[in-house]
């Protein structure tokens, strides 16, 4: 295990201390607990609250999207582990301004159960909570079983659109509707070529051959669709899109946003080589591209690999995506629509 850290058990809390130290102008912790993080300007807000939460090891996911135009709070779990429901509750209490709170989180068993539990606890405190579990990894369950799909990088679009809607002053139902609409419009496919080492575990999460890739692998190393020899970037992208595009489906005349997301160790250079092929395929299919994101949006520590998310736009989602946002990990000026 070759990592910059101190005691492995302290990894998550020290990381959070570093984040709070670096971004104290934008973020603060509540309940005296670095694992409960909210926007520092929360009180002036008076809008529907948006909370997320999830395991550590995926920066900028999850807390990286807490900020203006996106989310209001985030509870943080251990590496690849759900945060506890009491932390979720603390965040909920801190961000609620009486207009209710929407939970948006990735569709993983542990997270679902804990957010459900937190919702019940929040109800006891008379806070109105609704939830949206994002799941758009087409490799994780077949078409027809969408509810079983894992949430991966595409959740960025859900945060972005729901966050923009809340910022407009929409009510809880409206924001919930946008979260679901955005989640329904996005699909993701990933590929991994190297494992990760969870600091407290100290050894690789899985074994993969020196010349192998796994298409469809999840961001915690969940088994994918196919393991095989590492193909050329063009062939990898083609295989991913062949599976992804027919799923929604995305068809000629559609307008989309594309997110090419690095899993951690894959250089931006390679992501752009991949995007080049994505653009070529979309163009050939008559699908036009409005806005492209390339970089690390949902990682898995130092895993090498990437994912492609395609987000189908209509006027409503497009204008929400185009709205400005500002978090310590993501800044976007208003886009021209």
């Amino acid at each position, binding site marked *: 295990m070759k990592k910059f850290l101190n005691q492995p058990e302290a990894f998550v809390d020290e990381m959070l201390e570093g984040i709070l130290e670096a971004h104290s102008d934008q973020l603060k912790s509540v309940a005296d607990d670095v694992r409960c993080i909210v926007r520092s300007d929360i009180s002036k807000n008076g809008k529907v609250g948006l909370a997320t939460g999830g395991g550590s090891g995926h920066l900028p996911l999850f807390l990286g999207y807490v900020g203006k135009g996106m989310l209001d709070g985030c509870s943080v779990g251990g590496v690849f582990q759900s945060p*506890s429901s009491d932390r979720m509750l603390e965040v909920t209490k801190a961000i609620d301004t009486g207009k209710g709170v929407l939970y948006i989180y990735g569709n993983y*068993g542990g997270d679902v*159960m*804990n957010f459900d539990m937190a919702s019940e606890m929040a109800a006891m405190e008379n806070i109105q909570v609704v939830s949206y579990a994002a799941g758009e990894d087409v490799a994780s369950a077949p078409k027809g079983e969408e509810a079983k799909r894992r949430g991966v990088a595409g959740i960025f679009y859900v945060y972005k659109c729901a966050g923009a809607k809340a910022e407009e002053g929409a009510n809880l139902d409206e924001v919930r509707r946008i979260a679901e609409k955005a989640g329904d419009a996005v699909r993701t496919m990933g590929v991994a070529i190297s494992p990760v080492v969870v600091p407290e575990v100290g050894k690789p999460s899985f074994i993969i051959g020196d010349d192998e890739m796994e298409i469809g692998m999840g961001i915690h190393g969940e088994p994918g669709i196919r393991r095989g020899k590492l193909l050329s970037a063009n062939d990898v992208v083609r295989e991913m899109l062949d599976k992804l595009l027919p799923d929604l489906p995305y068809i000629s005349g559609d307008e989309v946003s594309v997110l090419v997301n690095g899993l951690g160790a894959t250089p931006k250079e390679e992501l752009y080589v991949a995007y080049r092929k994505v653009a070529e395929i979309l163009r050939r299919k008559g699908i036009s591209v409005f806005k492209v994101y390339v970089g690390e949006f949902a990682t898995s520590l130092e895993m090498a690999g990437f994912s492609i998310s395609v987000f189908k736009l209509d006027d409503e989602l497009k204008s929400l995506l185009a709205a400005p946002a500002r978090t310590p990990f993501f800044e976007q000026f208003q886009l021209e629509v």
Partner: protein
Amino acid sequence: MDASTAKKAIDCIRKLMEENRDFLIELDSIIGDGDLGLTMTMAFNTADDKMKNLEESDIGQLFFKTGMEIAKAAPSTMGTLVATGFMRGGMALKGKIELFPADMALFFRAFADALIDRGKSKPGEKSIIDVIDPAATAMEGSTDDWNTLADAGIAAARSGLENTKMMMARHGRAAYYQEKSIGKQDPGGTAGLFIVEGMLKAFKSEK
């Protein structure tokens, strides 16, 4: 059968989890992420430490708080399920400062229902439910005395666990393995057996 027995029961479960820590890790490594032995010992160590020092004669409250502590200490899938089980089981016993065998059946029924509710799952899907639910049913039919109750409950939990081997996993990480999960004993169910055993043995021995 007062709060001190309840505390002893938590301690019994703790010991079973500790003794079987590596076994649980091993089972969870095959069709999961291998953390179960860690989360279960963490969960019951924390809960046991807290409960030991708690002035509380209401057994319902005691179990409810056990669940609360587990929820904080172990927010993994099983941690959360077991936490919900203890909380709902505790709610079913609210106000009781002494327990009778029928109360234990009430507790595990509420526990099993909590798992079904929280896990959005049902019996037959290769999970802890396949251990707790049959155990609860067996106890409901054997409330004469602690001995009968305990024997029936444990026997049902054991055979429930055995049955999970034939099932295909429908939930959690194990579900990714689909057919490959068949033939393997469910890790969560195994931890479930230790909960049933620890609880019933403590009450049986105190009777």
